[in-house]
């Protein structure tokens, strides 16, 4: 599990770039020879892996949305971030992806700090948000083109990548249609294609299959699986569908009331809770109480979009 539980105190030797704790190697950032590395709860200086989160806190007024959360995701892993409504999943993703400032704690994404090295972090990941983020007045191709230019993908390569990604998500025939004519599943596929356009090392998926039919959901997950296998993309996703998480995730973390209550492989969690499925394990860990998510601005927005767009 996480490196942050290591109780050892280590001293950095001259020119030391890596640190071995147990069977895991860690890259060192922001340290100079002679620095003493303490367990992360006090000193988050040794961080490794594709995503590292140490003691992350986010409070909104008195409400603590993310409460001292720590986890790490190694390169190439498919990591499921699960939890009931309002548990802090999306808030965590927002902090990882530079759009929200943490109250305290340390984050490294691909080795960079989302607060101080925003552009390096932004180049490292692609993201599919929980709510659609396409410009529906533009065509599919124009949405991709815009993304490619914003991320500085050079022109000949851009065209090539857009074409192959359109084929990959099976939208090539619809590439010149306006996005407003796409179905929900098609929009999702386009968003995934767009998130991959700049060859990111990490793919964030915030509830990528919400509101989609089983066929499309299957399609998207097998697609994500193949991404991780073929292109070594690290995948960080959240979902409500436990059977999906069980099928694709190498490791899952379960977050509830802003705290991580368990983190392991789905098999290990089932074993630990003696549940038959990950869903049993999930309920065993988070309880049966129904959660009332506060109807914030984004919920109102979804409502409004349903009214206006019939979606």
């Amino acid at each position, binding site marked *: 599990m996480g490196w942050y539980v290591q109780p050892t105190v280590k001293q950095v030797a001259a020119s030391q770039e890596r640190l071995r704790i147990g069977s895991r190697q860690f890259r060192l950032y922001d340290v100079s020879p002679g620095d003493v590395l303490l367990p992360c709860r006090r000193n988050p200086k040794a961080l490794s892996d594709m995503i590292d989160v140490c003691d992350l806190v986010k409070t909104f007024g008195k409400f603590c949305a993310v409460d001292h959360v720590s986890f790490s995701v190694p390169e190439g892993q498919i990591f499921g971030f699960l939890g009931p409504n309002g548990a802090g999943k999306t808030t965590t993703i927002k902090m990882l992806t530079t759009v929200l400032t943490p109250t305290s704690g340390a984050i490294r994404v691909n080795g960079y700090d989302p607060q101080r090295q925003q552009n390096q972090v932004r180049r490292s990941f692609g993201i599919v948000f929980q709510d659609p*983020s396409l410009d529906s007045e533009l065509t599919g191709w124009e949405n991709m083109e815009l993304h490619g230019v914003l991320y500085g993908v050079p022109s000949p390569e851009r065209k090539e990548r857009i074409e192959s990604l359109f084929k990959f998500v099976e939208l090539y025939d619809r590439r010149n249609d306006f996005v407003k004519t796409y179905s929900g599943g098609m929009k999702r596929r386009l968003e995934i294609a767009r998130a991959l356009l700049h060859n990111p090392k990490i793919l964030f998926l915030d509830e990528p299959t919400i509101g989609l039919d089983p066929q499309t959901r299957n399609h998207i997950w097998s697609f994500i699986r193949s991404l991780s296998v073929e292109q070594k993309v690290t995948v960080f996703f959240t979902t409500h569908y436990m059977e999906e998480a069980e099928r694709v995730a190498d490791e899952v973390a379960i977050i509830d009331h802003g705290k991580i209550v368990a983190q392991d492989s789905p098999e290990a969690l089932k074993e630990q809770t003696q549940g038959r499925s990950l869903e049993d394990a999930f309920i065993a860990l988070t309880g049966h109480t129904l959660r009332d998510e506060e109807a914030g601005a984004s919920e109102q927005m979804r409502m409004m979009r349903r009214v206006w767009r019939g979606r």
Partner: protein
Amino acid sequence: MKAVYILWLRQLKRYARSRARIVGSLGQPLLFLLALGFGFGPTFAKAGGGNYIQFLAPGIISMGILFTAVFSGIEIIWDRQFGFLKETLVAPVSRLHIVLGRTLGGATVALIQGVVVFVICLAVGFRFVHAPLLPVALVFMFMIAVLFTAIGTAIGSVLEDMQGFQLIMNFIVMPLFFFSNALFPVQGLPKALQFLIHLNPLTYGVDGMRGAFGTTFLFGVGTDFVVLGSLTMVLLGIGSYLFSKIQI
């Protein structure tokens, strides 16, 4: 800079594709031009002001630009609600470039709208004096466009939804238009009103346009240009700052 260009292009494409919006936003200036222009024309002439359409046209052009520009800026709220804003916020592009692209795009749209109103004014009987001075008028039109798109951007960055729409309309956009020299001459007005009008950036834009079209300047081309130019820079700065503070 490519990011600025692609975001500019996006605004233009969206504009070109929404015919309803183009026609719709021409309605108001047209109404003002015809109703006020012909309605007050005789009174204005009797009072010794000359041809009212000649006086009014630059004001109406500025109105077309003002409304389109502010709403192009406020489009950020729509982008926030329909999600596209997030796509730009996680892009590895400086916030200033995003604001510049959006603002220049919105301003270009407003400028086009202004030119269309100008052509309508010509059709109604407006005449300019020196053709070589037309580019100067265009410069002033573009400056108003950028300035008010920047104001719209600033407002759109602060507001979370369209609830405040009426507020913006009645307490910002309408007063900007009415408390300017767009509809009536400033000379002889009550001191307080004159003071207010002198604070309004739109006044300097309308004055610059009037001068360039061949009516007389109130302040002179240099003053108009400097006041409008520096205000535009300041508001662009404020707009980018507020935009960079957006958290979603």
